[in-house]
């Protein structure tokens, strides 16, 4: 393989892996948006909480106290993060989204979740401090090599878990009654109400699923990012961009956009410089909004006059 091809391939792999991380964060955002037209600004902090939950269960609870191997401990910690995210989602739904839901307002929940975000970030700062935690998953430092191409075991794990999560979410939405009900609510609240579906329950469920996804993303990001209480904040703005590029509330769009942004980022680093990543991503975002305002995969919603 020529050096050039190897480089292109390597950066593409880097990009896809990065994209999968973004997808894991963005999926929850898009799910909440799709069902209830709300933005959860604290979503990124759920990711951070998930990362810390995973960190403490992987490096303390499962390994030091329960004597499991590092590998098992880490894999189990993913579920702990998932649970932590879900719990947090339950709380935030009860505290913010449920009370504000009936006012059919897109701004107040946004501001309220900004408040939640400030609260969570600083509570974690008090609890864990600002010095980065060293979260070593046993997979992060093992490198798989094919000739010049390399990637870490962790990145394989990330891609597999991302695929499983997407697959799971997809089949849940397609094949289960609750999933179908969720889609019904996202399309038309009143009709869903007529079908005898408890809307409150469905919305709580959506937030819990989305938050659990965020927690899980935290467990996977933890060993590869700089784990501080501010870790999530570093990806949230990009996650917003991805959700928009993919079309708000559109799962397929989010997945494609996430991976696309990951790849663009890798090639921006290669050819333009890492200092302009955000510039490139957001110029792309505005460009997308000009040429295709409804996102990569458009869902037509005709305004009924």
């Amino acid at each position, binding site marked *: 393989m020529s050096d050039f091809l190897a480089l292109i391939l*390597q950066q593409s792999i880097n990009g896809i892996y990065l994209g999968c991380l973004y997808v894991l964060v963005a999926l929850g955002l898009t799910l909440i948006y799709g069902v209830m037209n709300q933005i959860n600004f604290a979503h990124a902090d759920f990711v951070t909480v998930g990362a810390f939950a995973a960190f403490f269960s992987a490096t303390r609870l499962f390994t030091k106290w329960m004597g499991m191997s590092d590998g098992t401990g880490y894999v189990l910690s993913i579920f702990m993060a998932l649970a932590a995210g879900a719990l947090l989602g339950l709380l935030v739904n009860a505290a913010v989204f449920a009370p504000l839901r009936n006012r059919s307002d897109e701004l107040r929940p946004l501001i309220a979740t900004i408040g939640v975000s400030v609260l969570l970030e600083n509570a974690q700062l008090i609890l864990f401090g600002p010095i980065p935690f060293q979260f070593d998953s046993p997979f992060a430092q093992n490198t798989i090599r094919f000739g010049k191409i390399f990637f870490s075991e962790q990145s394989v794990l990330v891609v597999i878990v991302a695929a499983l999560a997407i697959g799971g979410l997809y089949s849940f939405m397609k094949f289960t009654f609750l999933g179908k009900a969720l889609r019904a609510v996202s399309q038309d609240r009143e009709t869903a109400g007529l079908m005898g579906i408890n809307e409150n329950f469905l919305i709580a469920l959506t937030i819990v699923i989305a938050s659990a996804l965020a927690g899980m993303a935290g467990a996977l990001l933890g060993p590869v990012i700089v784990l501080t209480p501010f870790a999530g904040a570093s990806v949230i703005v990009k996650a917003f961009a991805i959700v928009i590029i993919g079309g708000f509330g559109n799962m397929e769009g989010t997945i494609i956009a996430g991976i696309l942004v990951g790849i663009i980022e890798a090639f921006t680093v290669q050819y333009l*410089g890492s200092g302009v990543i955000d510039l490139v991503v957001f110029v792309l975002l505005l460009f997308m909004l000009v040429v295709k305002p409804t996102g990569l995969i458009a869902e037509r919603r005709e305004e009924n006059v």
Partner: protein
Amino acid sequence: MIGFSALKSGALAAAVGLAALSAPAIAQNVIRVGVLVPISGPASYFGVQGKEGVALALEQINRGNGINGIKLDVQFEDSACSPLQATNTVKRVLEQFKPHIVVGEECSDASLAIAPILEQAKVPMLNAGSAANQLTESGYKYVFRIFPNAAQQGVPLGRNAYTKLGARTAVLLHVKTNAGVDNADGFAKEFEAAGGKILARIDFAQDVNDFTPIATRIAALGKVDVLPTFALEGQQVRLSQALAQARVVKGGGGTGIQMGSIWLPWGFEAKAGQASQGYIRIVQFDPTEKRKMVTDFIDAFRAKYGADKTPTHINAHAYDTMLLIAEAVRRGARDSESIRDRFSKMRDVEVTTGKITFDAKGQNSDMSVIHFVETQADLSWKGLNW
């Protein structure tokens, strides 16, 4: 560049009333020290460690009779590493606490913003964490810095890379902040003047987490001798690991040598693992040093904060600032003016990070605070005596 005279006449005449406020006439046995550190936001990384160092020093200095009957009184304020917040906070401290001296800030942006206010108020500023050259190059009379500025770090780094390591090619890696840019410039200037070649200059934002694409790019550049890296601990761990994974640096089986200045704390190697092998960097505080001052400091630190902890250079810097103030008081300083006077006459004052001699600009000119170390295969440090 704005001349000092212009600053003096106009910019911050705002602080005019402060001089009067901050020069209490009553005989006293307390020296008030305002400490401005970032306690909120990501920069609290510095603030939290700074507070630890100050608190420890304070405990020791104020024990018993203090310094000949005089005690230090410290007030912390959160200046958030931001110029706006820092200017607001410094005014607040000046009028509510009336300090004789202010210690801070960690971030260059904020330090540069408060320096003219303190100059105007005639309250000395003792800085221990900002590298921007400009801070002591602006003609301020009340600004002192024990931290080596970017030039002091970058120049020996660039020179030694060329002469001692025989490096001819370099890739600069730095975080896009005031200090990162200054450090990288300092290295580049010296290295290129000596005849070296900068193959690429790669800067990145403070919120970049994944360095694999950057490492891939460097790997594709061909043979790189040195990689001067200027970023904080969190990012550097990931960066070194990515470079090792891409087989750029020695730690990953490559030939490149990462070099760095005073950004990384003791304990970096343990976090980065094998990837940090061969890393050559300047440390200002070396906890393995056998000087009594250092061992005493470490013992006291562990007694206060836990036996498993080793102080970082940030802890040490903060601790040293208090030692210096205590030293000034010991030499008879009783107010802002006399503290400034004693500071400007200090020669070879020993602190945990080395020796301090302030030059006419207020910058510590004693290069003994700069030690080069190389990370060994077992992750220990080897002093290089450069």
